[in-house]
């Protein structure tokens, strides 16, 4: 073959080779390479909207947002970032080395501003803004952060906000949550994060090979989070927290008919703003504190019920007709069950049910309990909503526990003795309840036999959701049973021998039950749970003092709270 023709063929082959290469890149790999090209040149600069506000039932702001000023440096303008950093250090009164570290750690690309100091305060922000002419790279970026007008007020109901953690991120990534998102932890902030959460808007910009800004491609307005209105009454909440003061414990005020939580205090509490201000020292202090200030004792604390449990035994006895109003037992200060001696806190002699409630007689309830049997008591406790969460909306609610012979047999391989029944009858032994469960139990007597579901969120984005929140079930108790126990509860306050007699001189008629729950190793827990006014109850109140001593002390706190509510005309 002619050499020229071979060369000609080689040329044709070379061009075919190039065409195939072109086809491969532009058609076969085209889509992937187009994505890479976009990735090269398109950046998103997020713009954050404001998280939804939280109001109390009267429209007072509990949590809103304030502007926090962050100092940023835009590397592409900086030229020599050292000079701008030095000026920043002078005005912010922060060590130059700290700023340099923050700058180097935060650096991503020249077009992305680096945060060198967060939450610098308005005065310093203005001072920095004034030197902007000489240092165009310094940017002051206002961003909304949580503002708590009343500091720690209702902290446990509200919760706090902080950067999303790994566990939540894996769970919520499918719902559009990203790393570094600010999300709610605990309380309404966590439960209603989806509603409170703002929708991020942003700027889509084109950058060049060194990441420098070229032009804006698009902008989406950030959407504000939805506002939430709570059932809390700020004034009552304040009174409750004020009287709980330095003691450990919880106070709950609830509407007995609807389940609206009017006040819910847990002590010790915390100031949620430390999580927004990012002061690491105080945050770790909160987590390490042995008193666990982050725990909401009202819903997540588990304690023995003590004498308040006797109301369940009384109801069970009346409902099952094991007792009638005229049945009497004699209390001689103690009784023997098997070989063990079970004592009462006093000697009450002969008394009927009302008297036993009034003076909280243990012996009466030992005998009643033995008549009923442990399983019946257990079943009635379940009816009153114990041993399971109340379906209250805030997260981390504990379920509590009521023992039963069957449970004991299956889980502990032990027999149930009459002594255990006696202990159960006065709410001791393995009984564990939350203050919220006890509040709800008392509501049954206040409202005439209905089990309510407590709730705290009244409206979202000005839309009233109460009708969805209210879940009220009738327990089908006899009217006479409820009335009879109510009478006993009133006597607890009215009768000079009643355990809560100290509340008798209030200007409002209170009914309730005290409890002194023994707990191993130390002071007993003090309970007072009641409702007022007696005729048409508006509030159920539960005062619980962890290791607070005898129930009498809880009565004192309750008295203070109710007294102040009367003073301020809140009843």
């Amino acid at each position, binding site marked *: 073959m002619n050499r*020229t023709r071979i060369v*000609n063929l080689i*040329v044709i082959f070379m*061009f075919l080779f*190039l065409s195939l290469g*072109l086809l491969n*890149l*532009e058609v076969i790999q085209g889509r992937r390479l*187009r994505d890479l090209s976009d990735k090269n040149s398109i950046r998103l600069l997020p713009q954050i909207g404001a998280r939804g506000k939280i109001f109390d039932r009267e429209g007072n702001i509990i949590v809103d947002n304030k502007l926090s000023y962050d100092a940023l440096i835009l590397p592409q303008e900086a030229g020599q970032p050292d000079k701008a950093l030095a000026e920043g250090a002078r005005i912010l009164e922060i060590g130059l080395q700290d700023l340099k570290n923050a700058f180097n750690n935060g650096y991503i690309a020249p077009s992305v501003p680096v945060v060198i100091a967060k939450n610098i305060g308005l005065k310093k922000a203005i001072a920095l803004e004034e030197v902007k002419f000489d240092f165009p790279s310094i940017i002051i970026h206002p961003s909304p952060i949580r503002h708590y007008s009343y500091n720690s007020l209702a902290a446990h109901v509200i919760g706090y906000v902080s950067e999303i953690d790994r566990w939540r991120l894996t769970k919520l990534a499918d719902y559009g949550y990203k790393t570094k998102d600010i999300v709610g932890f605990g309380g309404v902030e966590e439960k209603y994060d989806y509603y409170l959460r703002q929708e991020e808007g942003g700027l889509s910009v084109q950058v060049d*090979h060194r990441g420098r800004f070229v032009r804006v491609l698009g902008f989406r307005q950030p959407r504000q989070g939805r506002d939430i209105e709570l059932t809390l009454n700020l004034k009552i909440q304040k009174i409750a927290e004020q009287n709980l003061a330095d003691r450990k414990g919880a106070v709950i005020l609830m509407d007995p008919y609807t389940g609206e939580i009017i006040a819910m205090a847990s002590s010790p509490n915390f100031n949620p703003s430390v999580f927004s201000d990012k002061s690491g020292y105080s945050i770790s202090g909160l987590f390490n504190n042995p008193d666990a200030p982050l725990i909401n004792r009202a819903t997540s604390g588990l304690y023995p019920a003590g004498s308040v449990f006797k109301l369940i035994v009384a109801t069970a006895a009346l409902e099952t007709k094991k007792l009638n109003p005229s049945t009497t037992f004699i209390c001689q200060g103690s009784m023997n069950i098997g070989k063990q001696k079970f004592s009462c806190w006093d000697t009450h002699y002969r008394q009927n049910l009302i008297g036993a409630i009034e003076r909280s007689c243990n012996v009466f309830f030992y005998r009643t309990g033995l008549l009923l049997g442990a399983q019946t008591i257990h079943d009635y406790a379940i009816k009153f909503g114990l041993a399971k969460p109340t379906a209250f909306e805030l997260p981390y609610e504990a379920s509590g526990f009521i023992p039963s012979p069957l449970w004991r047999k299956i889980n502990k391989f032990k027999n149930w003795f009459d002594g255990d029944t006696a202990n159960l009858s006065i709410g001791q032994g393995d009984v564990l309840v939350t203050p919220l469960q006890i509040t709800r139990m008392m509501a049954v007597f206040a409202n005439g036999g209905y089990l309510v579901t407590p709730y705290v969120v009244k409206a979202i984005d000005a839309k009233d959701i109460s009708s969805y929140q209210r879940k009220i079930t009738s327990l089908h108790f006899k009217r006479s049973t409820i009335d009879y126990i109510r009478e006993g509860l009133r006597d607890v306050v009215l009768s000079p021998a009643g355990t809560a007699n100290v509340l008798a001189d209030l200007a409002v008629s209170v009914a309730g039950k005290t409890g002194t729950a023994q707990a191993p190793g130390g002071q007993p827990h003090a309970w007072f749970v009641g409702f007022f006014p007696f005729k048409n109850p508006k509030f159920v109140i539960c005062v619980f003092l962890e290791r607070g001593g005898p129930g009498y002390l809880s009565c004192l706190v309750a008295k203070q709270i109710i007294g102040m509510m009367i003073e301020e005309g809140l009843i």
Partner: protein
Amino acid sequence: MRNSYFVILIIALIIAAIGILSIYSTTYQKEGKLWQEIYKRQILWVLLGLTMFIIMSNLPYRWLWDWTYFLNAAALFFLFLVFMLGVVRLGAQRWLKIAWFNFQPSELAKLIIVIFLSRYFSRKEVYDTSLLSTKFGIFRGLILPFLFVAIPMGLIIEQPDLGSGLMILFLFIAVLYLSKLKLKYIFIFLLIMILALPLVWQILRDYQKERLLVFLNPNIDPLGAGYTVIQSKIAIGSGAIFGKGWLSGTQSQLHFLPEAHTDFIFASFAEEWGLLGSAVLLILYYLLIKQGVLIAQRTNDYFGRLLALGISLMLGIQVFINIAMNLGLAPVVGLPLPLMSYGGSCVLATFVALGILVNIDRTRAIF
């Protein structure tokens, strides 16, 4: 006869125009008046090239036969001059500063070597006008011409300009093959070249070794030596079928693609015009080269035929290496795309070569 003149001229001008559009697109956003007016300079070069094309197409090509040794000497002289006092740009010493422009002698040297080789292998016996090259032994057929080629080639590789050096080597092999030299000698030459490869590897500069390694696997150094190839592939691929449109190529305009207006102008073009545009461009180049081969086949004069083939192959090899390197199918060597890349010397040399080509076709008719 006038046919090839206009076909070549029109194709060359279309390619040059596409080149100017692409140069404008890649540079109009850059800062500095110099960058933004660079396309005007290219227009000037193309106009100058056009003049050279017209002059060369009217100058009977046989004068090249007589002037070969002078041209050779001139090429060597300029290459030495570059070696002594050339302008260093982009880490290489390839340019001579003459008045207001930079001149790259290696572009012209390639053409001169093609002329020299064509003449060398088309000398004839005095007695019966048969070709001398058929009787060449290994010394006169291989060693002597290689020595002539090796000196300018060495100087060019030393600049360093591996691409042009390699091109000269390929041209040498191609002309050997096209001359009626015995195939045996060509195989011997190829064998020696292959055996010399390890030695050549030692001579290569670090960056050249890097580029060759990166060609084998661009991902070993995506931000360093492999960066250009990766960005070039992204640019071409992101053009897809219809391209991003003129002035809308993000890769080339936002400087992700280095040398977007010179060696990688094909990638810039493909990004904005897509598969359709690039296919048209490839066809244009093919037609241009095909014209050269056709002219060679029509020419009876042996010198003219060899020269026409040499020039066509010179263009073809350069187009092939450049586009293959843009596609990531060849290692990155500093070779411009003839007629498209920005650069006066290359544009001028190409137009001169095309002028000679046209003249070969013209002169043929005179016989």
